[in-house]
């Protein structure tokens, strides 16, 4: 019986290459765009922008989804989170607080995206 090869040279090369590219992308983005900014919260539902809110002003609002569901979004102390949602998985609530440029909360069942966007230029190069 042929012994199966668990780790080959190519495997290690592949792992190193993938990790290196990811690290470079993450670092490059960190250098290019300030991690923390005087950010805006950009809310889109089903691909349409429904509002922009400054992270500096505390507020709370409810976003209605096309399917009738809703998410309660809270902006407080320079961060944003989803306090309540009636989606089946609740991933948006478990996401917790976002406050850095490019970070987002996604509620797939409600097709809702809450994105931290830095000023007028948009979130980052990928987003454009």
């Amino acid at each position, binding site marked *: 019986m042929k012994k199966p090869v668990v780790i080959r040279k190519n495997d290690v090369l592949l*792992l190193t290459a993938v990790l290196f590219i990811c690290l470079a992308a993450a670092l490059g983005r960190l250098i290019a765009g300030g991690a923390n900014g005087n950010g805006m919260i950009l809310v889109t539902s089903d691909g349409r922008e429904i509002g922009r809110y400054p992270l500096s002003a505390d507020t709370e609002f409810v976003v209605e989804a096309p399917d009738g569901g809703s998410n309660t979004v809270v902006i407080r102390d320079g961060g944003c989170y989803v306090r309540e949602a009636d989606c089946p998985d609740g991933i948006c609530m478990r996401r917790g607080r976002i406050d850095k440029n490019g970070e987002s909360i996604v509620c797939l069942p409600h097709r*809702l995206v809450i994105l931290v966007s830095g000023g007028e230029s948009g979130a980052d190069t990928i987003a454009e």
Partner: protein
Amino acid sequence: MRSKGKKVTILGMSTALALILSYLESLIPYYFGVPGMKLGLPNLAVVLLLLMGDPVGALIVNLLRIVLSGFLFGSLYGILFSIAGALVSFGMMLLLWRSRRFGASGISIGGGTAHNLGQLMIAAWVVRTPGILYYAPALIAAGALTGFVIGIAAGASLPAIRSVYDKEKL
């Protein structure tokens, strides 16, 4: 795969293994908050079948465990996403396996990264917001690391499974 009995047995046991691992995984909460981030434990069964030279069986087990675990521990919505991620992942693993240039860990790395990236892209398409691709580097790196570990586990347990499999006459 020599006899039908053996094939049915090995596919049944692989599906059971994948289901148990799906259950274990469902107990672990999401850390990245983006659909697509998973440990990929059930992929162990899929990698094992690929290494045993049964790509068709691997695909069947992959789809079966998603549908079964989706109904048992998840939602219909989750099933659709899982199937999309699993197909992208499976395609990548099939390519790496066919190339004969990679070992178990390399095949599994390909599966892990493709799964996470695939699901993220599908999520970006569903919400029509490419901005969530912000998480791509983190998800790909996580997929590569978990895939690496799962590949080692699959490669290491293969000889034991094979020796029993080759001995049994059905």
